[in-house]
């Protein structure tokens, strides 16, 4: 895991300084609560949740895109029934959130939130608009590269993941301490790639991004061994 996840203690990202624990984390052995996870499913989403461009009367401004991929475990097994939630800024780089002070316009036709549940092959897919880059106050002239926030509830508590997906070739990568907090060799795992199979002709470019969850979920065999 250490070759993938960022170090929590990363002072270049200023907000870490008062929030990162000072004590070393203690390894939590996998027992029952760790290898189980919430059972979600189709009831958690309604039609339209996976298309962020149809949630209002009008159509949001910006470049329409398709984003899709699979959720799998590290051994390659697909994770079906995983709840994938996304949130993002609009095409102008502004979130529909009271705390966002960026002087860019809100879009009355874009909320910026979506969710879907993976199918039997672990596949998920959203239609949205490409989010804009935006400034933040981490350091002088700081800008976030365009990104979509992802939350994934996998098969086990240990697989819970919140992360961000980026777009290929963004020149802001080199200046971003949040992406930069990830070990250099692992950063590309957060960058989607243009995928002509996901691209819809005459409609929207497609970007593909697969999500690999660490940690091991329970297998039926272990369940049996654990039984009272």
């Amino acid at each position, binding site marked *: 895991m250490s*070759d*993938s*996840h*960022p170090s*929590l203690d*990363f002072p270049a*990202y*200023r*907000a*870490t*300084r*008062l*929030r*990162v*624990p*000072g*004590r070393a*984390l*203690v*390894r*939590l052995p996998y027992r*029952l*609560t*760790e290898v*189980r*996870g*919430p*059972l979600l499913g189709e009831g958690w989403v309604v039609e339209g949740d996976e298309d962020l461009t149809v949630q209002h009367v009008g159509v949001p401004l910006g470049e329409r895109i398709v984003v899709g991929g699979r959720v799998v475990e590290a*051994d*390659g097994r697909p994770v079906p029934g995983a709840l994938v*939630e996304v*949130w993002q800024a609009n095409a102008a780089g502004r*979130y*529909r*959130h009271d*705390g966002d002070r960026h002087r860019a316009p809100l879009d009355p036709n874009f909320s*910026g*939130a979506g*969710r879907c549940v993976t199918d039997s092959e672990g596949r998920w897919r959203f239609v949205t608009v490409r989010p804009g880059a935006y400034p933040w106050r981490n350091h002088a002239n700081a800008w976030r590269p365009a990104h979509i*926030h992802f*939350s994934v509830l996998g098969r086990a*508590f240990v697989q*819970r993941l*919140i*992360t*961000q997906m980026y777009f290929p070739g963004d020149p802001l990568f080199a200046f971003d301490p*949040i*992406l930069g*907090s990830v*070990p250099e060799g*692992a*950063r590309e*795992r957060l960058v989607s790639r243009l995928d002509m199979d996901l691209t819809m002709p005459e409609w929207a470019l497609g970007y593909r991004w*697969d999500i*690999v969850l*660490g940690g091991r979920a329970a297998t039926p065999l272990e*369940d049996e*061994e*654990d039984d*009272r």
Partner: protein
Amino acid sequence: MTLPVTPSQTIGPFFGVGLCWPDGPEVVAEGTKGAVLLTGRVTDGAGEPVPDALVETWQADPAGRFAHPEGPRGSSTSGFGGLGRCATDAAGCWAVRTVKPGPLPAPEGGVEAPHLEVSVFARGLLGRLVTRVYFPDEAEANAADPLLASITDPAVRARLVAVAEGDGLRFDIHLQGERETPFFAI
């Protein structure tokens, strides 16, 4: 085959756009037998409230079963999901309404005392923090719990046990500093 794991990133300050469910804090409905309100405050290393954290809880049901499809131990009785989710407010406070889970057999032998697993996400946290909540009226079970037993400092161990407050329970989360909550790597 081992695929490289997708790295985590911070939840950032604007997760309220997408992650807050109206019934997220209600693991069980008000009036459920044994329902208890578990509240707490998240504070930073300066003792200031953290108003932009997301707290998630995960647990077994009162019979020690999970809402999980696999295995002969069976799934939880219908309706119990076991997952709670609450964003902190301006004062850093969060609350979930839940029930005390049952004890669980530990794979290495022995019994785990009733507990909730807790994930904390926030701006400034590049990954989640994981801790556990134990129950103050389970002194005997807590004394036999393998995880609690592995923590040698009794003052640190005590920080994993909620405090009875009125009709409910309180579990404050100190991200950093002298009273820092014990956090776990998983």
